């Protein structure tokens, strides 16, 4: 983890350099006071210095017992679980506008419950229908929160 921390510190320092460079293209100061680049310049500079401080701190720190064996991400089943959750969320972000809320959420819930959670089929079906079609009508009809309909004509025509 110590090495990983130092790499993360270096990435943070690079990030601050990029922001610093972008700040230089903005107006730093004008006759009436600080411009849009003033705050960003100083903040990125401070973040860069703090990142270097973190790298230095990690470099000097003695690793705790067993720390070197620790990894940033878990391995095996745990990693698969995390990737599946992230993948399902990314699916929702990308397909919600295309398939519409009801279909995408139904697929999302079926995946999370049946495949990831190993919940039985009947419970999965009931929860997925309530969570997709049910919530769509509650939010759009009663709570006035807009949720997307499908951008595909053949789906939106039939109410999705």
């Amino acid at each position, binding site marked *: 983890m110590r090495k990983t921390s130092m790499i993360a510190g270096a990435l943070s320092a690079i990030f601050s350099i990029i922001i610093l460079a972008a700040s230089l293209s903005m107006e730093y100061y004008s006759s009436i006071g600080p411009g849009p680049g003033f705050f960003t310049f100083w903040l990125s500079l401070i*973040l860069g210095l703090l990142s270097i*401080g973190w790298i230095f701190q990690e470099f000097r720190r003695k690793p705790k017992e067993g720390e070197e064996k620790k990894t940033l991400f878990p391995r095996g089943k745990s990693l698969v679980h995390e990737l599946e959750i992230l993948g399902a969320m990314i699916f929702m972000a990308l397909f919600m506008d295309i398939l519409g809320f009801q279909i995408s*959420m139904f697929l999302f*819930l079926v995946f999370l419950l049946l495949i*990831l959670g190993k919940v039985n089929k009947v419970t999965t079906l009931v929860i997925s229908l309530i969570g997709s079609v049910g919530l769509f009508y509650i939010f759009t009809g009663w709570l006035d929160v807009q949720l997307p309909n499908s951008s595909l004509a053949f789906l939106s025509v039939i109410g999705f």
Partner: protein
Amino acid sequence: MDAFQNILMGFSVALSPANLLYAFLGSAFGTLIGVLPGIGPAAGTALLIPLTARLPPTGAIIMLTAIFYGTQYGGTITSVLLNVPGEAASAITCIDGYKMAKKGRAGSALSIAAIGSFIGGTFATIALIFLAGPLTKVALEFGPVEFFSLMVLGLSLLMGLAGKSMLKALMMGVFGLLLAMIGMDPVRGSPRFTFGRMELMDGLNFVPVIMGLFGLAEILENAEETLSNTTSAKVGSLVPSRQEVKDSVGPIARGSLLGTLLGLIPGMTGSMASFLSYSMEKKISRHPERFGEGAIEGVAGPETANNAHANGALIPLFTLGIPASPTVAVLMGAFLMNGLIPGPFLFREQPQLVWGVIASFFIGNIMLLILNLPLIGIWVKMLKIPYTILFAIILTFMVIGAYGVDNSAFDVIIMIIFGFLGYVLKKFDFPIAPIILTLILGPNMERSLRRAMEMSQGDFSILFASPLSAALLIVSVIILITSSLRSVATSRRQKA
């Protein structure tokens, strides 16, 4: 007399059927969020903001504040029955609360916690009523210089108290401020770091950011362990014994005072209030050996303190416009989304709204007492929902919550990015709270500083020209230095 008339006016607003319903819904949702492990008060409150989007501002704020203080009640239930804190402020309750449950006294622990929470919350609300007048008078004298310095003080307190490493807390604070720079420049109106995306012109939406950092990150962390079902202990009789009531009186009184006072200090969180209350009760107890073995004082004190803190933390928000903790920062964001700027001017411009919301705290606390005592069985049943189902439901509401803010899938992507970032930051032991506070306070801080600079023609000494501003900045520097020294001393001690 003024305060009395104001609160009477507030009750006339809060007791309308619609506002009673909003207070009830907020209290119930808050308890639910507190009960469910895996979603804290900040993410939970942010999650439900879209639900209030179409409500009138008074109703929306009544509901959201009730969610906030309701979470403190609900968190106790899981701490006592499962030994898993529903939210951080109830973590300390696990020690004696769970031991009491194992001895078959879970009902007593939950009753005393609910009564203590009610007394603590009510005490802090009374303090708010009496402090509102004097504090807003002081705040009305503040100019941009003083506001900037006050925000610096709040942030330095939070960073000084957050996490184990001052360096990491500072990094997070600065990172949050940089995130706050995204969008239109508040003075000139020119775009910054928007990458040509219209969605970023108004800045990063704080709702998906908070849900990602606090909610999704937590779910990803939980996914590392096998997704297992939850079980719960039996509640038993809710009536505490005479001795338990007698033993709880002192801790409840002290917890009310301590929590309210700590709520006034920006940077102090509910978990600090409950932790300090526990330590204090243990220190002054004639039988400290009973702590950790199921002492009712170890439940009564912390639970009262964290509720008094929750209501007390609303005092600086209402009077000065300064959020004291990440969840209060979320509430501040909700105020801003409703076109309301919390602070002294709100009392002058929207007295009905402000006093209506304050009066609703009394009503909300009574509702919570009922929800958490006679209706405790409902929440215990909720705990029996397997986590494999629960996490899918939470993720569903997160997607709706993020999408609902601006009707944009872009915000869902923002939530995923910050969820992953929050997960990684937790692995490196970075505190998350400073990001949220600086993200929400950042635009105000920049605006205040730049206005001050315009006033002084770019002369930074204006920050020290006013004695109050100078004092606030000096105290901030002292806090940062002492916290850094403490952090260095701790790491040296660990090395030795």
